[in-house]
Protein backbone atom coordinates (compact mmCIF):
# COMPACT_ATOMS: atom_id res chain seq x y z
CA UNK A 1 0.00 0.00 0.00
CA UNK A 2 1.10 3.49 -0.84
CA UNK A 3 0.34 4.78 2.63
CA UNK A 4 3.04 2.55 4.05
CA UNK A 5 5.89 4.19 2.19
CA UNK A 6 8.41 5.93 4.38
CA UNK A 7 9.54 9.31 3.22
CA UNK A 8 13.05 10.47 3.08
CA UNK A 9 14.54 7.06 3.66
CA UNK A 10 14.72 6.93 7.40
CA UNK A 11 16.05 3.60 8.72
CA UNK A 12 14.53 3.10 12.17
CA UNK A 13 16.93 1.61 14.67
CA UNK A 14 18.66 2.63 17.90
CA UNK A 15 22.16 4.02 17.59
CA UNK A 16 24.25 6.87 18.91
CA UNK A 17 24.12 8.51 15.48
CA UNK A 18 20.31 8.31 15.45
CA UNK A 19 20.17 9.98 18.85
CA UNK A 20 22.35 12.94 17.85
CA UNK A 21 20.73 16.35 17.55
CA UNK A 22 19.70 17.00 13.93
CA UNK A 23 21.71 20.22 13.96
CA UNK A 24 24.88 18.23 14.61
CA UNK A 25 24.09 15.93 11.70
CA UNK A 26 23.19 18.76 9.33
CA UNK A 27 26.26 20.78 10.24
CA UNK A 28 28.44 17.69 10.19
CA UNK A 29 27.29 16.69 6.72
CA UNK A 30 27.93 20.18 5.45
CA UNK A 31 31.43 20.28 6.90
CA UNK A 32 32.15 16.81 5.57
CA UNK A 33 31.16 17.85 2.04
CA UNK A 34 33.31 20.95 2.30
CA UNK A 35 36.26 18.85 3.42
CA UNK A 36 35.86 16.64 0.33
CA UNK A 37 36.48 19.64 -1.90
CA UNK A 38 39.57 20.76 -0.05
CA UNK A 39 41.77 17.74 -0.59
CA UNK A 40 44.67 17.78 -2.99
CA UNK A 41 46.03 14.31 -2.40
CA UNK A 42 44.96 10.74 -1.87
CA UNK A 43 45.68 10.81 1.87
CA UNK A 44 42.78 13.23 2.41
CA UNK A 45 40.31 10.96 0.64
CA UNK A 46 41.59 7.97 2.54
CA UNK A 47 40.98 9.75 5.85
CA UNK A 48 37.54 10.87 4.71
CA UNK A 49 36.63 7.32 3.72
CA UNK A 50 37.84 5.94 7.03
CA UNK A 51 35.90 8.55 8.97
CA UNK A 52 32.75 7.79 7.01
CA UNK A 53 33.19 4.05 7.50
CA UNK A 54 33.38 4.64 11.25
CA UNK A 55 30.20 6.73 11.26
CA UNK A 56 28.34 4.19 9.12
CA UNK A 57 29.45 1.46 11.52
CA UNK A 58 28.21 3.46 14.51
CA UNK A 59 24.87 4.19 12.85
CA UNK A 60 24.03 0.46 12.65
CA UNK A 61 22.42 0.99 9.25
CA UNK A 62 23.27 -1.95 6.97
CA UNK A 63 25.70 -0.93 4.26
CA UNK A 64 23.37 -2.05 1.45
CA UNK A 65 20.94 0.75 2.43
CA UNK A 66 23.72 3.25 1.92
CA UNK A 67 24.46 1.85 -1.51
CA UNK A 68 20.78 1.96 -2.43
CA UNK A 69 21.06 5.73 -2.53
CA UNK A 70 23.98 5.37 -4.91
CA UNK A 71 21.95 3.41 -7.45
CA UNK A 72 19.60 6.27 -8.19
CA UNK A 73 22.41 8.55 -9.25
CA UNK A 74 24.68 5.95 -10.80
CA UNK A 75 23.91 7.47 -14.20
CA UNK A 76 25.08 10.92 -13.14
CA UNK A 77 28.18 9.40 -11.64
CA UNK A 78 28.99 7.55 -14.88
CA UNK A 79 28.55 10.68 -16.98
CA UNK A 80 30.81 12.73 -14.75
CA UNK A 81 33.44 10.03 -14.75
CA UNK A 82 33.14 9.64 -18.54
CA UNK A 83 33.58 13.32 -19.24
CA UNK A 84 36.59 13.60 -17.02
CA UNK A 85 38.09 10.45 -18.44
CA UNK A 86 37.87 11.46 -22.10
CA UNK A 87 38.01 15.22 -22.06
CA UNK A 88 40.97 16.00 -19.85
CA UNK A 89 43.95 17.22 -21.85
CA UNK A 90 47.39 15.88 -20.96
CA UNK A 91 49.69 12.98 -21.71
CA UNK A 92 47.75 10.59 -23.96
CA UNK A 93 47.76 6.90 -22.99
CA UNK A 94 45.13 5.30 -25.23
CA UNK A 95 43.26 6.83 -28.12
CA UNK A 96 40.05 5.49 -29.59
CA UNK A 97 38.72 7.16 -32.71
CA UNK A 98 38.62 10.87 -31.79
CA UNK A 99 38.66 10.33 -28.04
CA UNK A 100 41.77 9.86 -26.02
CA UNK A 101 42.37 8.80 -22.49
CA UNK A 102 45.11 10.69 -20.73
CA UNK A 103 47.00 9.96 -17.57
CA UNK A 104 45.55 13.12 -16.02
CA UNK A 105 42.11 12.06 -17.17
CA UNK A 106 42.30 8.76 -15.36
CA UNK A 107 43.42 10.42 -12.16
CA UNK A 108 40.80 13.14 -12.36
CA UNK A 109 38.02 10.65 -13.14
CA UNK A 110 39.04 8.46 -10.23
CA UNK A 111 39.12 11.46 -7.89
CA UNK A 112 35.68 12.52 -9.05
CA UNK A 113 34.23 9.03 -8.57
CA UNK A 114 35.61 8.77 -5.06
CA UNK A 115 34.53 12.29 -4.13
CA UNK A 116 30.97 11.84 -5.40
CA UNK A 117 30.55 8.42 -3.78
CA UNK A 118 31.73 9.74 -0.43
CA UNK A 119 29.47 12.76 -0.80
CA UNK A 120 26.40 10.65 -1.51
CA UNK A 121 27.04 8.08 1.17
CA UNK A 122 27.86 10.87 3.60
CA UNK A 123 24.59 12.65 3.06
CA UNK A 124 22.54 9.47 3.08
CA UNK A 125 23.91 8.74 6.54
CA UNK A 126 22.13 11.90 7.60
CA UNK A 127 18.78 11.09 5.95
CA UNK A 128 18.91 7.46 7.04
CA UNK A 129 19.42 8.31 10.69
CA UNK A 130 17.17 11.36 11.06
CA UNK A 131 13.37 11.46 10.73
CA UNK A 132 12.12 14.06 8.21
CA UNK A 133 10.43 15.78 11.10
CA UNK A 134 13.64 16.11 13.04
CA UNK A 135 15.40 17.36 9.94
CA UNK A 136 12.95 20.21 9.41
CA UNK A 137 13.13 21.04 13.12
CA UNK A 138 16.90 21.15 12.93
CA UNK A 139 16.85 23.30 9.82
CA UNK A 140 14.40 25.71 11.37
CA UNK A 141 16.55 26.18 14.41
CA UNK A 142 19.83 26.41 12.51
CA UNK A 143 18.53 28.93 10.02
CA UNK A 144 16.80 31.05 12.65
CA UNK A 145 19.47 33.80 12.48
CA UNK A 146 18.43 34.38 8.85
CA UNK A 147 15.22 35.87 10.19
CA UNK A 148 16.92 39.23 10.48
CA UNK A 149 17.06 39.22 6.68
CA UNK A 150 13.27 38.72 6.74
CA UNK A 151 13.53 35.14 5.53
CA UNK A 152 10.39 33.26 6.66
CA UNK A 153 12.32 30.43 8.30
CA UNK A 154 9.53 29.13 10.53
CA UNK A 155 7.00 29.23 7.69
CA UNK A 156 9.27 27.32 5.31
CA UNK A 157 9.91 24.64 7.92
CA UNK A 158 6.16 24.38 8.61
CA UNK A 159 5.48 24.07 4.88
CA UNK A 160 8.03 21.30 4.58
CA UNK A 161 6.57 19.28 7.41
CA UNK A 162 3.04 19.73 6.07
CA UNK A 163 4.21 18.61 2.65
CA UNK A 164 5.74 15.52 4.24
CA UNK A 165 2.46 14.77 5.99
CA UNK A 166 0.39 15.15 2.81
CA UNK A 167 2.55 13.44 0.21
CA UNK A 168 1.36 9.93 1.16
CA UNK A 169 -2.25 11.13 1.23
CA UNK A 170 -1.99 12.71 -2.21
CA UNK A 171 -0.19 9.66 -3.61
CA UNK A 172 -3.01 7.49 -2.42
CA UNK A 173 -5.48 9.87 -3.97
CA UNK A 174 -3.61 9.80 -7.28
CA UNK A 175 -3.81 6.04 -7.18
CA UNK A 176 -7.54 6.16 -6.53
CA UNK A 177 -8.27 8.65 -9.32
CA UNK A 178 -6.09 6.68 -11.70
CA UNK A 179 -8.04 3.49 -11.00
CA UNK A 180 -11.31 5.35 -11.43
CA UNK A 181 -10.17 6.71 -14.80
CA UNK A 182 -8.86 3.33 -15.95
CA UNK A 183 -12.22 1.81 -15.06
CA UNK A 184 -13.76 4.36 -17.41
CA UNK A 185 -11.40 3.32 -20.19
CA UNK A 186 -8.56 5.79 -19.74
CA UNK A 187 -5.19 4.56 -20.96
CA UNK A 188 -2.06 5.80 -19.19
CA UNK A 189 0.39 3.26 -20.59
CA UNK A 190 0.39 3.15 -24.38
CA UNK A 191 1.20 5.72 -27.06
CA UNK A 192 4.08 8.09 -27.46
CA UNK A 193 5.27 10.56 -24.90
CA UNK A 194 2.91 13.29 -26.09
CA UNK A 195 -0.10 10.98 -25.98
CA UNK A 196 0.77 9.79 -22.51
CA UNK A 197 1.22 13.32 -21.25
CA UNK A 198 -2.19 14.17 -22.63
CA UNK A 199 -3.69 11.17 -20.87
CA UNK A 200 -2.44 12.65 -17.58
CA UNK A 201 -4.74 15.67 -17.85
CA UNK A 202 -7.86 13.94 -16.52
CA UNK A 203 -5.69 12.70 -13.67
CA UNK A 204 -4.08 16.00 -12.77
CA UNK A 205 -7.18 18.18 -12.87
CA UNK A 206 -9.11 16.35 -10.13
CA UNK A 207 -5.90 15.93 -8.17
CA UNK A 208 -5.23 19.66 -8.19
CA UNK A 209 -8.80 20.50 -7.25
CA UNK A 210 -8.66 18.12 -4.33
CA UNK A 211 -5.25 19.41 -3.23
CA UNK A 212 -6.55 22.97 -3.13
CA UNK A 213 -9.62 21.90 -1.21
CA UNK A 214 -7.42 20.09 1.29
CA UNK A 215 -5.14 23.11 1.63
CA UNK A 216 -8.14 25.31 2.31
CA UNK A 217 -9.53 22.93 4.94
CA UNK A 218 -6.15 22.53 6.58
CA UNK A 219 -5.57 26.28 6.80
CA UNK A 220 -8.94 26.65 8.48
CA UNK A 221 -8.24 23.81 10.90
CA UNK A 222 -4.86 25.33 11.79
CA UNK A 223 -6.39 28.73 12.46
CA UNK A 224 -9.14 27.17 14.52
CA UNK A 225 -6.37 25.72 16.69
CA UNK A 226 -4.87 29.17 17.22
CA UNK A 227 -2.00 28.87 14.76
CA UNK A 228 -0.59 32.32 13.98
CA UNK A 229 2.95 31.78 12.77
CA UNK A 230 6.10 31.25 14.77
CA UNK A 231 5.74 34.20 17.18
CA UNK A 232 5.13 33.17 20.77
CA UNK A 233 5.00 29.50 19.89
CA UNK A 234 6.46 26.92 22.26
CA UNK A 235 7.76 23.49 21.31
CA UNK A 236 6.52 20.14 22.47
CA UNK A 237 9.83 18.56 21.49
CA UNK A 238 12.43 21.31 21.72
CA UNK A 239 15.91 20.59 20.41
CA UNK A 240 18.36 20.43 23.27
CA UNK A 241 22.05 19.64 23.00
CA UNK A 242 23.31 16.82 25.21
CA UNK A 243 26.87 15.89 26.10
CA UNK A 244 26.96 13.45 23.18
CA UNK A 245 26.22 16.34 20.81
CA UNK A 246 29.10 18.45 22.13
CA UNK A 247 31.34 15.43 21.88
CA UNK A 248 30.25 14.95 18.27
CA UNK A 249 31.05 18.56 17.48
CA UNK A 250 34.49 18.01 18.99
CA UNK A 251 35.07 14.93 16.85
CA UNK A 252 33.99 16.90 13.78
CA UNK A 253 36.40 19.73 14.44
CA UNK A 254 39.17 17.25 15.03
CA UNK A 255 38.33 15.49 11.74
CA UNK A 256 38.26 18.74 9.79
CA UNK A 257 41.59 19.98 11.10
CA UNK A 258 43.31 16.64 10.75
CA UNK A 259 42.03 15.65 7.32
CA UNK A 260 42.47 19.03 5.70
CA UNK A 261 45.99 19.44 7.03
CA UNK A 262 46.88 16.00 5.73
CA UNK A 263 44.88 16.46 2.53
CA UNK A 264 46.63 19.65 1.54
CA UNK A 265 50.13 18.56 2.47
CA UNK A 266 52.34 19.11 -0.58
CA UNK A 267 54.29 16.01 0.28
CA UNK A 268 51.47 13.88 -1.14
CA UNK A 269 50.42 16.30 -3.87
CA UNK A 270 48.77 14.69 -6.86
CA UNK A 271 51.20 14.28 -9.74
CA UNK A 272 49.68 16.88 -12.09
CA UNK A 273 49.56 19.71 -9.64
Amino acid at each position, binding site marked *: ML*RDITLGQFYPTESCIHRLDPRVKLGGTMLYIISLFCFKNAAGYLLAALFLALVVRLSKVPFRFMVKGMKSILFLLLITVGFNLFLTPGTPLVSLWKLQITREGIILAATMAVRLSLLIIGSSVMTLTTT*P*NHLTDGMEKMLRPLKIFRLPVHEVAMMM*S*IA*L*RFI*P*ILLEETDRIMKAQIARGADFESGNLFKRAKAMVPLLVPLFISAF*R*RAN*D*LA*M*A*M*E*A*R*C*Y*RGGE*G*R*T*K*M*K*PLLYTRADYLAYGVLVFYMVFSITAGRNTFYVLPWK
Partner: protein
Amino acid sequence: MKMIKTDKLTYEYIRRDDDGNVEGITTAVDNVSLDVDAGEFIAILGHNGSGKSTLAKHINAILNPTHGTVWVDGKDTSDEANLWDIRQTAGMVFQNPDNQIIGQVVEEDVGFGPENIGIPTRQIWERVEESLRAVGMYEYRKYSPNKLSGGQKQRVSIAGVLAMHPKCIVLDEPTAMLDPNGRKEVIRAVRALNDVEKITVVLITHYMEETIHADRVFVMDRGKIAMEGAPREVFSQVDKLKELRLDVPQVTLLAYELQKRGLQLPNGILTVQELTQELSRILAERERK
Protein backbone atom coordinates in the same frame (compact mmCIF):
# COMPACT_ATOMS: atom_id res chain seq x y z
CA MET B 1 -23.59 33.39 31.70
CA LYS B 2 -24.52 31.68 28.45
CA MET B 3 -21.75 29.73 26.78
CA ILE B 4 -22.91 30.67 23.31
CA LYS B 5 -25.41 33.35 22.47
CA THR B 6 -26.37 34.61 19.05
CA ASP B 7 -28.60 37.58 18.45
CA LYS B 8 -30.27 37.95 15.03
CA LEU B 9 -27.23 36.37 13.40
CA THR B 10 -27.24 36.69 9.62
CA TYR B 11 -24.45 35.68 7.25
CA GLU B 12 -24.35 36.33 3.53
CA TYR B 13 -21.93 34.79 1.04
CA ILE B 14 -21.38 37.30 -1.73
CA ARG B 15 -20.51 35.97 -5.18
CA ARG B 16 -18.60 38.34 -7.41
CA ASP B 17 -17.78 38.13 -11.10
CA ASP B 18 -14.29 38.72 -12.52
CA ASP B 19 -14.60 42.49 -12.29
CA GLY B 20 -15.59 42.40 -8.64
CA ASN B 21 -19.24 43.24 -9.25
CA VAL B 22 -21.76 41.50 -7.04
CA GLU B 23 -23.34 38.62 -8.95
CA GLY B 24 -25.48 37.12 -6.25
CA ILE B 25 -25.96 36.82 -2.53
CA THR B 26 -26.59 33.59 -0.62
CA THR B 27 -28.00 34.12 2.82
CA ALA B 28 -26.56 31.05 4.50
CA VAL B 29 -27.67 31.93 8.03
CA ASP B 30 -30.80 34.00 8.37
CA ASN B 31 -31.71 35.87 11.54
CA VAL B 32 -30.81 33.13 14.02
CA SER B 33 -31.05 33.80 17.75
CA LEU B 34 -30.15 31.03 20.12
CA ASP B 35 -28.67 30.41 23.57
CA VAL B 36 -26.56 27.55 24.80
CA ASP B 37 -25.91 27.10 28.51
CA ALA B 38 -22.54 26.01 29.86
CA GLY B 39 -22.41 22.20 30.07
CA GLU B 40 -25.25 21.65 27.63
CA PHE B 41 -25.19 19.11 24.79
CA ILE B 42 -26.76 20.65 21.71
CA ALA B 43 -27.35 18.93 18.38
CA ILE B 44 -27.98 20.68 15.11
CA LEU B 45 -29.69 18.76 12.30
CA GLY B 46 -30.40 19.86 8.77
CA HIS B 47 -30.07 18.76 5.16
CA ASN B 48 -27.10 19.76 2.97
CA GLY B 49 -26.80 23.48 2.41
CA SER B 50 -29.10 24.43 5.27
CA GLY B 51 -26.40 26.61 6.83
CA LYS B 52 -25.11 24.39 9.64
CA SER B 53 -21.42 24.78 8.82
CA THR B 54 -21.75 28.51 8.36
CA LEU B 55 -23.37 28.82 11.78
CA ALA B 56 -20.67 26.62 13.32
CA LYS B 57 -17.85 28.73 11.89
CA HIS B 58 -19.22 31.77 13.72
CA ILE B 59 -18.76 30.10 17.10
CA ASN B 60 -15.02 29.75 16.44
CA ALA B 61 -14.71 33.24 14.91
CA ILE B 62 -13.69 31.78 11.54
CA LEU B 63 -16.54 33.82 10.10
CA ASN B 64 -17.89 37.12 11.38
CA PRO B 65 -21.59 37.97 11.19
CA THR B 66 -22.86 40.13 8.34
CA HIS B 67 -25.60 41.33 10.70
CA GLY B 68 -26.23 40.54 14.34
CA THR B 69 -23.86 39.44 17.09
CA VAL B 70 -22.35 36.23 18.47
CA TRP B 71 -21.00 35.96 21.99
CA VAL B 72 -18.88 33.05 23.17
CA ASP B 73 -18.42 32.88 26.92
CA GLY B 74 -19.52 36.49 27.07
CA LYS B 75 -17.07 37.72 24.44
CA ASP B 76 -18.16 39.33 21.17
CA THR B 77 -16.66 37.30 18.30
CA SER B 78 -16.41 40.22 15.90
CA ASP B 79 -14.02 42.05 18.23
CA GLU B 80 -10.52 41.37 16.87
CA ALA B 81 -9.04 41.56 20.40
CA ASN B 82 -11.05 38.49 21.50
CA LEU B 83 -10.09 36.33 18.52
CA TRP B 84 -7.52 34.01 20.08
CA ASP B 85 -9.37 33.82 23.39
CA ILE B 86 -12.47 32.68 21.56
CA ARG B 87 -10.64 30.11 19.47
CA GLN B 88 -9.17 28.68 22.65
CA THR B 89 -12.52 28.67 24.45
CA ALA B 90 -14.46 27.09 21.60
CA GLY B 91 -12.61 24.31 19.79
CA MET B 92 -13.72 23.00 16.45
CA VAL B 93 -13.62 19.53 14.87
CA PHE B 94 -14.24 19.30 11.13
CA GLN B 95 -15.68 16.70 8.81
CA ASN B 96 -12.63 15.35 7.00
CA PRO B 97 -10.16 13.78 9.45
CA ASP B 98 -7.30 13.84 6.95
CA ASN B 99 -7.52 17.57 6.39
CA GLN B 100 -7.25 18.62 10.00
CA ILE B 101 -4.40 16.51 11.33
CA ILE B 102 -1.17 18.47 11.06
CA GLY B 103 1.34 16.31 12.91
CA GLN B 104 3.11 13.31 11.48
CA VAL B 105 2.80 11.47 14.76
CA VAL B 106 -0.40 11.33 16.83
CA GLU B 107 1.11 12.92 19.93
CA GLU B 108 2.67 15.75 17.93
CA ASP B 109 -0.65 16.57 16.38
CA VAL B 110 -2.35 16.75 19.76
CA GLY B 111 0.47 19.02 20.93
CA PHE B 112 -0.02 21.43 18.03
CA GLY B 113 -2.72 23.56 19.67
CA PRO B 114 -0.94 23.96 23.03
CA GLU B 115 2.26 24.88 21.15
CA ASN B 116 0.39 27.63 19.34
CA ILE B 117 -0.88 29.20 22.53
CA GLY B 118 2.56 29.12 24.13
CA ILE B 119 2.16 26.44 26.81
CA PRO B 120 5.52 25.41 28.38
CA THR B 121 6.95 22.11 27.12
CA ARG B 122 6.34 20.03 30.26
CA GLN B 123 2.68 21.04 30.45
CA ILE B 124 2.19 20.28 26.77
CA TRP B 125 3.18 16.67 27.46
CA GLU B 126 0.76 16.50 30.40
CA ARG B 127 -2.06 17.89 28.30
CA VAL B 128 -1.31 15.54 25.42
CA GLU B 129 -1.39 12.53 27.69
CA GLU B 130 -4.61 13.50 29.45
CA SER B 131 -6.37 14.37 26.18
CA LEU B 132 -5.36 11.16 24.44
CA ARG B 133 -6.53 9.17 27.46
CA ALA B 134 -9.86 11.01 27.46
CA VAL B 135 -10.61 9.78 23.92
CA GLY B 136 -9.00 6.36 24.45
CA MET B 137 -6.16 6.89 21.99
CA TYR B 138 -3.21 6.93 24.38
CA GLU B 139 -1.83 3.60 23.14
CA TYR B 140 -1.63 5.05 19.64
CA ARG B 141 0.38 8.13 20.60
CA LYS B 142 3.44 7.08 18.59
CA TYR B 143 1.48 6.07 15.46
CA SER B 144 1.45 7.88 12.17
CA PRO B 145 -2.05 9.31 11.57
CA ASN B 146 -2.01 7.65 8.14
CA LYS B 147 -2.17 4.24 9.80
CA LEU B 148 -5.33 4.92 11.82
CA SER B 149 -8.96 4.25 10.91
CA GLY B 150 -11.33 7.15 10.26
CA GLY B 151 -12.91 6.90 13.70
CA GLN B 152 -9.51 6.85 15.37
CA LYS B 153 -8.38 9.88 13.37
CA GLN B 154 -11.46 11.82 14.45
CA ARG B 155 -10.77 10.90 18.08
CA VAL B 156 -7.24 12.25 17.63
CA SER B 157 -8.73 15.46 16.23
CA ILE B 158 -10.98 15.72 19.28
CA ALA B 159 -7.96 15.17 21.55
CA GLY B 160 -6.17 17.95 19.67
CA VAL B 161 -8.97 20.32 20.59
CA LEU B 162 -9.21 19.02 24.17
CA ALA B 163 -5.52 19.71 24.75
CA MET B 164 -6.27 23.42 24.48
CA HIS B 165 -8.61 23.10 27.50
CA PRO B 166 -11.67 24.53 25.78
CA LYS B 167 -14.97 25.17 27.51
CA CYS B 168 -16.92 24.29 24.42
CA ILE B 169 -16.44 22.02 21.41
CA VAL B 170 -18.19 22.41 18.08
CA LEU B 171 -18.16 19.32 15.88
CA ASP B 172 -19.17 19.86 12.26
CA GLU B 173 -20.39 16.51 10.91
CA PRO B 174 -17.51 14.60 12.52
CA THR B 175 -19.06 11.28 11.52
CA ALA B 176 -20.06 12.02 7.92
CA MET B 177 -17.07 10.23 6.41
CA LEU B 178 -16.97 7.27 8.81
CA ASP B 179 -18.31 3.71 8.78
CA PRO B 180 -20.92 2.72 11.40
CA ASN B 181 -18.29 1.51 13.88
CA GLY B 182 -16.25 4.67 13.53
CA ARG B 183 -19.39 6.72 14.04
CA LYS B 184 -20.18 4.92 17.28
CA GLU B 185 -16.62 5.39 18.55
CA VAL B 186 -16.71 9.12 17.91
CA ILE B 187 -20.17 9.68 19.38
CA ARG B 188 -19.15 7.74 22.50
CA ALA B 189 -16.07 9.97 22.87
CA VAL B 190 -18.16 13.10 22.41
CA ARG B 191 -20.67 12.01 25.04
CA ALA B 192 -17.85 11.31 27.48
CA LEU B 193 -16.55 14.85 27.02
CA ASN B 194 -19.93 16.20 27.95
CA ASP B 195 -20.61 13.79 30.84
CA VAL B 196 -17.15 13.54 32.37
CA GLU B 197 -15.36 16.74 31.44
CA LYS B 198 -18.53 18.86 31.52
CA ILE B 199 -17.62 20.50 28.24
CA THR B 200 -20.36 22.24 26.29
CA VAL B 201 -20.91 20.31 23.05
CA VAL B 202 -22.45 21.48 19.79
CA LEU B 203 -22.80 18.43 17.55
CA ILE B 204 -23.73 19.00 13.93
CA THR B 205 -24.87 15.94 12.05
CA HIS B 206 -27.42 14.64 9.64
CA TYR B 207 -27.86 11.32 11.39
CA MET B 208 -30.85 11.65 13.71
CA GLU B 209 -29.78 8.66 15.82
CA GLU B 210 -26.68 10.51 16.95
CA THR B 211 -28.67 13.32 18.52
CA ILE B 212 -30.75 11.20 20.86
CA HIS B 213 -28.60 11.97 23.90
CA ALA B 214 -28.59 15.71 23.31
CA ASP B 215 -30.27 18.05 25.77
CA ARG B 216 -31.78 20.02 22.90
CA VAL B 217 -32.02 19.58 19.16
CA PHE B 218 -32.23 22.33 16.57
CA VAL B 219 -33.27 21.64 13.00
CA MET B 220 -32.08 24.12 10.41
CA ASP B 221 -33.62 24.81 7.04
CA ARG B 222 -32.58 27.49 4.58
CA GLY B 223 -30.56 29.33 7.18
CA LYS B 224 -33.31 29.47 9.77
CA ILE B 225 -34.02 27.41 12.87
CA ALA B 226 -37.06 25.42 11.77
CA MET B 227 -37.58 23.27 14.86
CA GLU B 228 -36.24 23.27 18.39
CA GLY B 229 -36.78 21.10 21.45
CA ALA B 230 -35.91 17.95 23.36
CA PRO B 231 -34.94 15.10 20.99
CA ARG B 232 -38.15 13.07 21.41
CA GLU B 233 -40.32 16.12 21.01
CA VAL B 234 -38.65 16.91 17.72
CA PHE B 235 -38.56 13.34 16.45
CA SER B 236 -42.25 12.79 17.08
CA GLN B 237 -43.10 15.31 14.35
CA VAL B 238 -42.25 12.91 11.55
CA ASP B 239 -44.19 14.69 8.82
CA LYS B 240 -42.46 17.95 9.47
CA LEU B 241 -39.03 16.29 9.56
CA LYS B 242 -39.71 14.69 6.19
CA GLU B 243 -40.77 18.05 4.86
CA LEU B 244 -37.41 19.45 5.99
CA ARG B 245 -35.72 16.69 3.97
CA LEU B 246 -34.14 14.89 6.91
CA ASP B 247 -33.38 11.18 6.65
CA VAL B 248 -35.84 9.87 9.21
CA PRO B 249 -34.68 6.38 10.35
CA GLN B 250 -36.87 3.54 9.11
CA VAL B 251 -37.76 2.34 12.63
CA THR B 252 -39.00 5.81 13.47
CA LEU B 253 -41.17 5.80 10.36
CA LEU B 254 -42.50 2.35 11.17
CA ALA B 255 -43.27 3.30 14.77
CA TYR B 256 -44.96 6.45 13.53
CA GLU B 257 -47.18 4.50 11.10
CA LEU B 258 -48.08 1.96 13.80
CA GLN B 259 -48.94 4.80 16.15
CA LYS B 260 -51.22 6.31 13.53
CA ARG B 261 -53.04 2.96 13.28
CA GLY B 262 -53.77 3.05 16.99
CA LEU B 263 -50.89 1.29 18.74
CA GLN B 264 -49.98 2.87 22.09
CA LEU B 265 -46.33 3.68 21.32
CA PRO B 266 -44.29 6.49 22.87
CA ASN B 267 -43.20 9.36 20.66
CA GLY B 268 -39.95 9.56 18.71
CA ILE B 269 -38.67 5.98 18.75
CA LEU B 270 -35.19 5.90 17.20
CA THR B 271 -33.75 2.41 17.56
CA VAL B 272 -34.87 -1.09 16.61
CA GLN B 273 -34.24 -2.16 20.19
CA GLU B 274 -36.62 0.43 21.61
CA LEU B 275 -39.35 -0.54 19.18
CA THR B 276 -39.06 -4.27 19.87
CA GLN B 277 -39.18 -3.59 23.62
CA GLU B 278 -42.31 -1.50 23.28
CA LEU B 279 -43.94 -4.04 20.99
CA SER B 280 -43.27 -6.97 23.31
CA ARG B 281 -44.65 -4.93 26.19
CA ILE B 282 -47.84 -4.36 24.22
CA LEU B 283 -48.06 -8.03 23.27
CA ALA B 284 -47.62 -9.09 26.89
CA GLU B 285 -50.41 -6.71 27.94
CA ARG B 286 -52.75 -8.10 25.28
CA GLU B 287 -52.13 -11.68 26.38
CA ARG B 288 -53.00 -10.79 29.96
CA LYS B 289 -56.40 -9.52 28.86
